[in-house]
């Protein structure tokens, strides 16, 4: 299966047998002034439908960078020398590098749910609005108006599952770090994405809180058969994944 997906065409139709998400030999180098900082040097990662993959790695090893590439937030470097190497990130066998701007927006809107390492909530909005904003972006004005009651219901339920039912009208500044992270997770899940990318969702939390959040996420996952890539440096979190990979020297080691 990995073989057939090895050399997809840029805009080949999506295939059911391809992994939901696959990074193939991707490179990412940041340029700081005149110095090149290579972060990813041919990193490969794939996740099949319903699979939960944990990515471990030292701080600064490029975990967040890799996750950004998977989520279509950033693009991998082009490799002009080795044209056949087919370095790319593919969703269901379709290279997202070849996506148009609109397709990429659509991909971020409906396919991926992203939980950031540093919550990233909109400070002016309430907890509930922060969750709903992703739905607003997905459905547009008319679509959102049509189903706003159902969406509010769903957002409220999600927040309830994360124990935030009583904080719906609060602003992010009024919440603790753990509570903010739970809001961010609810936002990532509101559009029922097939792929959840979570960047240290429990990294800033104590063992107990982190554990309970993870319990809730796993319970949801077992219902929705969601594919998950979760970045962590916590062994116990990694242990709950189907598979664990390590990011070392810009490459993924098994």
């Amino acid at each position: 299966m990995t073989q057939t997906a090895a050399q997809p065409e840029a805009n080949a139709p999506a295939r059911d047998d391809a992994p939901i998400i696959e990074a193939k030999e991707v490179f990412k180098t940041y340029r700081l002034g005149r110095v090149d900082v290579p972060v990813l040097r041919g990193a490969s990662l794939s996740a099949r439908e319903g699979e939960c993959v944990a990515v471990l790695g030292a701080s600064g090893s490029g975990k967040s960078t890799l996750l950004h590439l998977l989520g279509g937030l950033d693009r991998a470097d082009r490799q002009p020398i080795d044209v056949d190497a087919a370095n790319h990130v593919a969703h269901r066998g379709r290279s997202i590098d070849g996506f148009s701007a609109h397709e990429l927006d659509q991909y971020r809107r409906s396919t991926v749910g992203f939980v950031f390492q540093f919550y990233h909530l909109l400070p002016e909005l309430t907890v509930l609005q922060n969750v709903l904003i992703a739905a607003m972006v997905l459905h547009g004005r008319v679509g959102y108006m049509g189903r706003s009651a159902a969406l509010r219901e769903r957002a409220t339920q999600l927040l309830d599952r994360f124990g935030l039912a009583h904080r719906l009208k609060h602003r992010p500044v009024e919440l603790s770090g753990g509570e903010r992270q739970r809001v961010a997770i609810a936002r990532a899940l509101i559009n029922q994405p097939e792929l959840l990318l979570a960047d240290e969702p429990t990294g800033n939390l104590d063992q107990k809180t982190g554990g309970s959040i993870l319990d809730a996420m796993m319970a949801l996952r077992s219902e929705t058969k969601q594919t998950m890539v979760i970045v962590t440096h916590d062994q116990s979190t990694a242990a709950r994944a189907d598979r664990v990979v390590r990011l070392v020297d810009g490459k993924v080691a098994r």
Partner: protein
Amino acid sequence: MYQALLTRRYLTSKIMPLLSAAAVMLCVAMVLIVWSVMGGFLNMLLSSGKQLMGDVSIAWPIYGIAHYEQLIDDLEASPKVDRATPTIEALGLLKLPTDEPRQVQVIGIDPEGFNAVTGYVDRLYWKRRAKPLPGDTHGEDPRLKLPAGFEAYGKTLSYPDPARNQDLPAVVTGLEVSRFYERTRAGYVVSVLGRILPSFEVTITVAPISQGGSVVDTSSQSFVVANEFRTGLYEIDANQVLMPIDVLQEMLQLEEQSIPDPNWAPGQVEFDADGVPHPVVAKTVGVKPARATNILVNGAKGVSPQQLEVEVRGIYETWAQRYAERGARQGVPEPERIQIFTWENKPGLRTFIQAVKKETALVLVLFMIISLVAVVLILAIFWSMVSEKTKDIGILRAVGASRAGVAWLFLRYGLVIGVLGSLVGGGLAFVIVRNINPIHEWMGRALGLVIWDPQVYYFTRIPNQVEPSKAAIVMISGAVCAMLGALIPAARAAWMDPVKALRFE
């Protein structure tokens, strides 16, 4: 959708957008006030021109036009002409009961015809008022005490003389001629001399001009001021005096005169059949017709002043053909020399109207340039707001908002600020313009600042109307300008890299 939500949130949580809305508000209010006042000023000028002389005027100053009754008959025979009336304009000296002299423009009119063309009776000031003006809380307006029908004297330019038990010719002066009055805030005038006016007596002196163009002699006569008029045009109200045309004709020696036989000399005698000498009686060899210096013509309904001017010119040419003796002195000026003009082109008024038009345009351009400053201000404020909101932009892009969507967020925000500022600015301008006269009076009293000098601006009151079309143009431009200011920052937001935006601290 999310744009609407965020616009609302950003607006209520930040002071910056309110500041930019205030900038828009000030610009909109400023431009609208200036445009309304200057434009209103222009409108007043234009409409007052028509009020003063009808649509078209034929003028032959000093010497006057002879046989003018015939010309008027010819004019009124045209279907394009509604009414024509003769007037005489002359410089004069007016002496008030206080012995103060005033230099005035004396206008001899046929009251009925002059009213038909200009409607001057409507502008007679001293008319009985049944109810006090809104601001006249104590009922101090002297007009409340006038007998009903008082304006009849002004309408006929006559005043009863009880001693001789007959009506004598009277004059109507502009309300500002005597300077006996003080304007009150409510809009009526009160006498500063403490007597009930009008009907004071004035002496008017005019100088007839000989055929050779020199002053023959002066002639003076006393009249009762039967009423006073107010056009609102200071130049007119402070300078004009209306009197019956026949009286002025006599004073200026422009009335019908018989021409004595040039061969006759005093002391000549002739002998009758019996050889008895008799003094030769002065013989007349003809009559010198009466003259009028101006003929005011009003067009029929639907005839523009320009069309009327062409018609009047044609009629004048045919009329002039009838008289063998043409020329200025004969009172039948050559068609190419006669002055025929529409009210807009009235000498003096025309250059003034042009000047005001230019001035209005200039001031508007200046204020628009100042408004550009507001655009730049909004640009600066939005630029810093986009910087401040960089992280939000990253988050929105991360959850799938498109570049256009993010750009629209800020454009929409600019538009909302523009609309808000425009609405408040428009309202502010409306309130200020409507109350500009009280505000101006207050400034005069409290700060000693008098900007609107009636001697300079002709009108005694500042125009206080806001035209809805002007308001709409200015307010829409205000909103569009605010959006323009937001354009560059919005583009910047749209082209931000989501990951970099998220890393922004």
